[in-house]
């Protein structure tokens, strides 16, 4: 999967793939070549997951601000 696509993933999609990869990494059949590939992918996914939890989605914030009943001076 391309890096561009990874940013479009939802948190659930990203963490599901991440857990699958970790499971594969834990498998005794996982070769060292695959392992480095998996590690690189899993680190990307971890970053995406964490950013989904802790970074602001400006676009979403704007949409919700416009929709909110809360008055600016309240």
């Amino acid at each position, binding site marked *: 999967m391309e890096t561009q696509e990874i940013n479009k993933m939802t948190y659930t999609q990203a963490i599901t793939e991440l857990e699958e990869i*970790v499971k594969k990494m834990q498998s005794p059949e996982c070769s060292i070549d695959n*392992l480095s590939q998996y590690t690189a992918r899993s680190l990307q996914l971890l970053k995406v997951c964490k950013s989904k939890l802790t970074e*602001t989605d400006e676009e979403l914030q704007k949409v919700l*601000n416009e929709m909110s*009943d809360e008055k600016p001076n309240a």
Partner: protein
Amino acid sequence: MEPLSLLEYNSRIKNLLYDPSVQSCWVVAETSDLRVSRGHCYIELIQKNDAGATVAKLGAVIWASTFAKLNAKFIAATGKSIGNAMKVMVKVGANFHEQYGLKALINDIDPSYTLGDMERIRREIIDRLTKEGIIDMNKQLSWGLAPRRIAVISAQGAAGYGDFLKQLHNNNYGLKFYTCLFEAVMQGENCVPSVIAALDRIVEVEHLFDCVVIIRGGGSTSDLNSFDNYELGASIAQFPLPIITGIGHDRDVTIPDMVSNQHVKTPTAAAAFLVQCGVAQLERLKSLTEAIATISREAVAQSREQLAYYGNFIPMAAQKLVETSRLRLKGYAQSIPLVLKSRLGNERVGLQHKQEAIKTAVGTTMERQRLLLAALCDKVNLLSPQNTLNRGYSLTMCDGHVVTSVEGLNSGARIETTLKDGKVRSVIE
């Protein structure tokens, strides 16, 4: 008889009401048109028949000094203020004022009667929601892994709403939440339609949210009565997003609390629940990070060990290989003469056989040729001219040619005749 003045007549009525049978009586009735004015509580006590028609009605009042005490007692027992459409048991005394007419003065109330009735109503709502198969629908909705987009139904500017936002946005874990207020009246008669309207507005933009939080914005706990409502319960139960209710009731669980996906006691607790969901995900990510680090570390260590093993193994293997090859060569060296000897022996025997065969073949051929020769010799001897001469024949030659006919022989020609034992020359006449 002199007619009475109205005042006199009313005074007679008033006096009649001093009768103990209408004083200090416990009466059960339903409340209606309740209003509080200057601390005094005015209520219409009514009685309805099974068809819902009013069959009795009496104006009643709880004077301010009594109302504060009775209402506190009532709230303490039921969690609600004395309100409309409640079944109440009140201790009344009939009082007739010449100017204001008949009023029942309420001087005590038995909250347990109302409590029982409220419980009956609640039970009926719960039974209906259960029969309709919707009571657990919202509970059965699964939460997204990290609910962060939250539609909030609350009263704007309410303390509880402020507490919720503060607790949510100032969490210690750096978790980011998005909230959007859908304002509703959270107390009083308009509460139910207002909350239902807010839910309807959220449904239209449902895709933008992970969950809904319904929080009461603080204030008195006496207005919770209106939350025990079938329509509100049904709306929450069937709502497509999971709902957290934090409408604040210490004692009972309201119908919305019963049917919502999660119910918490306070708005702050609702925020804490959401933060905890995020924290659980952060911990999950942390444990995955650790797992990845451990796997990578172990893999590197294993590879290093493997390489070290190969490092030791290769010289040993090489030495072993050399030794094996040497032994194999030695084996070959020993086996070659034996093989050669065996091979030469075989060849020698073969040659001997071939030699014998050749000898036999040569002998046979020679004998056959000898016999042929002898036969030929006999034939040659038999056919030789000498043998013919011996048998009395002669051979005449003329000018070096054999004469086989008289033709061509002219007189005077010289001929030579060979006989068995010599030649004789003659001249033809």
